[in-house]
């Protein structure tokens, strides 16, 4: 399988504090990869490096075939990103948001028009084309934000706690969009605090104190740790953390 993410001894230091400590892992094409860890374990720092927003102190990493240190601009063009906090412009209409992000990623006008129609059809949002984003319910906004993040057909999309706060039905509909995208070959890199969602991933890594302490399929992790759920696996590993989030 082709690797979309590859890191070797990726490290980030802030002064004498090692936020990310020589982590090595790979993520394959079309894989749904869950990136878990306690608050303060270093997840955000890793994500920022993989998205080309922060330079590693040492070690190497490639994302979508580009070096995250030397080719960070190419990395940014070939990935999608969605976070719970910011994703859409509330004062723009649904189609205007799609138009804006398509333009930012350098898509041609004709591609944007075609893709807009297709995206709205798939979401069942055709009737909301001209609705201001701020008047959409939260669950719809999140589904739209996900579609925006993969609008330019990136090789990989980074989802930072994408389902926070939505109702359980919407949360599941959101995961069905994720599955559909992964089936099309888009790699999914997702963080979440919902441990049942960790079970929806093909593979899961758990970070503790800047290191990846476990990486495997949910099933194998549960077997290894003799646990009935991913929550139990997580509790066992993360409880060992020395720095927790009090650094």
């Amino acid at each position, binding site marked *: 399988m082709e690797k979309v993410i590859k890191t070797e001894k990726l490290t980030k230091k802030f002064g004498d504090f090692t936020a990310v400590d020589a982590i090595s892992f790979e993520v394959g094409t079309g894989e749904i990869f869950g990136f878990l860890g306690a608050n303060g374990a270093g997840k955000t720092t890793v994500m920022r490096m993989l998205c080309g927003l922060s330079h590693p102190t040492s070690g190497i990493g490639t994302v979508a075939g580009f070096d995250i240190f030397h080719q960070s601009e190419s990395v940014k063009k070939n990935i999608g990103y969605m976070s719970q906090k910011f994703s859409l412009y509330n004062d723009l209409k649904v189609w205007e948001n799609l138009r804006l992000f398509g333009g930012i990623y350098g898509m041609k006008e004709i591609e944007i028009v075609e893709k807009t129609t297709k995206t709205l059809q798939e979401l069942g949002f055709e009737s909301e084309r001209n609705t201001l984003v701020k008047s959409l319910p939260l669950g719809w906004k999140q589904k739209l934000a996900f579609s925006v993040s993969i609008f330019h057909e990136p090789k990989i999309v980074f989802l930072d706690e994408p389902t926070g706060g939505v109702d359980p039905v919407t949360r599941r509909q959101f995961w069905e969009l994720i599955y559909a995208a992964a089936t099309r070959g888009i790699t999914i890199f997702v963080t979440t*605090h919902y441990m049942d969602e960790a079970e929806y991933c093909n593979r899961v890594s758990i970070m503790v104190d800047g290191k990846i302490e476990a990486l495997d399929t*949910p099933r194998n992790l549960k077997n290894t740790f003799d646990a009935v759920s991913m929550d139990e696996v*997580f509790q066992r590993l993360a409880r060992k953390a020395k720095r927790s*989030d009090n650094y």
Partner: protein
Amino acid sequence: MFEALAVNNISITYGKLQALKDVCFKVEKGELFGLIGPDGAGKTSLFRILTSLLIPNNGTATVDGLDVVRDYRQIRNRVGYMPGRFSLYQDLTVEENLNFFATVFGTTVKENYYLIKDIYRQIEPFKTRRAGKLSGGMKQKLALSCALIHKPTVLFLDEPTTGVDPVSRKEFWGMLKKLKEQGITILVSTPYMDEAALCDRVALIQKGEILKIDTPKQISESFPHKLYSIHSDDNYNLLLQLRKNPTVYSAYSFGDTLHVVFNEELTADNTQYKEIQPTIEDCFMDLLKK
């Protein structure tokens, strides 16, 4: 003897949006009561009304027997409120924030220290650090300490565990349990359905309306169908197939299994399906379906 909280037909609208519609419930003294629902359900509006910060369009509510509109001054002395958004003074240190809140309420940190000791001790090593420079988990502990320092009779916690990792969430619920043992009534909201099981009673709330109020156990037992779980190596495909099957009433992913309700009794040859006890999340989704 009156209840710690009594909410009678509370409604509020913002423009065209009805944020709360005829909400009624009671919370007994010393109870740990959970408001469980997603963003936009109306949880924060309800908190703001009960802490006298927002006047409802309709209905009445009492806290400790005091009317939330008429007796707002007294209520503010009696309640502790931890809003969803971090609301302490970012430029004051940990210690200064705590002293400030104690002073505003006419007490001292020393007088009620016993109440916050277990929580505050964890952040005490950082007491000279500015609140704005704290990590998420530490902010949460400081906010809880500040909400408790005047020894409130009722504690309002608006989504204290949102965005918090599972280990810290578990710790936080441990702290709530201890506070409950001190006799403090707690109203806590959360979007995490699994936390419902940790409350004495819960109200499931969606779009401004309460769907159900009961103990977690009763809610789970009142699930009106037989619920089955099934596992396959390709759950996503199985889910899509089940959705097309007319005998399937509902099918949802749950961790590494699917939870399925059928329209008719299962025949004996369907041995791959196991009957299971519904969780609060199953119940919530079933209520949404109606």
